[in-house]
């Protein structure tokens, strides 16, 4: 087998096209940029979507933080739901279909906050975006 070993070591070596390295770099760069754009778009969508869904609670917190805090203490979750409902009616009538399907404004708000958090995570954690989506 020594002779075969020697012959295998002497086998004609294939040479790639001269521009193969450059093409690899270009392809990786292009795909990476595409992925970055996708990532930013996704983060933005999550952020905006989350903001829309959570806006009733955010509005309420912004307008009357102290009374809302008291409401939480006194009336619990129901009060927040009512507050969310009012604000949501003012801001987004169209959201009622979503409300009907989920059947709770609190759930919508929580979903909104989660979406925003996901959007932020998506934007901040850079390492994850080199992984396949």
């Amino acid at each position, binding site marked *: 087998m020594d002779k*075969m070993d020697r012959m*295998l070591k002497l*086998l*004609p070596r294939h040479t*790639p096209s001269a521009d193969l390295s450059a*093409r*690899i*770099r270009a392809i*990786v760069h292009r795909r990476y940029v595409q992925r970055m754009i996708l990532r930013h778009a996704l983060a933005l969508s999550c952020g905006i979507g989350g903001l829309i869904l959570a806006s009733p609670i955010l509005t309420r917190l912004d307008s009357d933080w102290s009374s809302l805090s008291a409401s939480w203490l006194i009336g619990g979750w129901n009060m927040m739901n009512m507050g969310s409902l009012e604000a949501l009616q003012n801001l987004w009538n169209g959201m009622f279909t979503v409300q009907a399907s989920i059947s709770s404004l609190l759930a919508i708000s929580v979903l909104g906050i989660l979406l925003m958090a996901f959007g932020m995570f998506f934007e901040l954690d850079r390492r994850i975006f080199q*992984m396949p989506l």
Partner: protein
Amino acid sequence: MKRLNRGKELDLIQHARLHDERAFAELVEAYTLAVYRITRRMVTDTLEAESIVQETFWRFWQKLPRYQTDAPLLPYLATIASNLARDRYRRERWLDDGDAENVLENRADEGPEPEAQFDQKQTLERLAAAVESLPIGYRAVIALRYDAGLDYEEIAQALSMPLNTVRTHLRRAKQKLKERMEADDG
């Protein structure tokens, strides 16, 4: 096959992890030839080999955050490349309903060219053709051993197989090649 020194390699990998495309480009420059030679030995088509090399580096880029830096890079790239080559081979084989052994038989029917039979260059070309006709698993170990210059342990790691299986594959591959060459010589 020339490799980057380990310190330099690790440094480039660390930078590439931070999305430094210049560091990644240096890694590409350093290993394109090695990965291409491994791939080209496993697939017969030049364009397909280049396509596999491109895909190999893209996958490496994607996997960089999870890459374990204690392992040398070339066997890692060889793993990706040989998996891609084997996947494509299986897909083509499924589509063509072909068989590597049939290729071997067909090549045997072609017969040697008498005037160049004893010329070393011709002999090596016949040997290269014989390697191409080996089953994909044997081609993989030949490529990693003789084209990339990996040792047995690195081949075992790259192909996810036990060390003894690597030895067996190499021995059988060489045996088949020897038989093929002897058949050609008449």
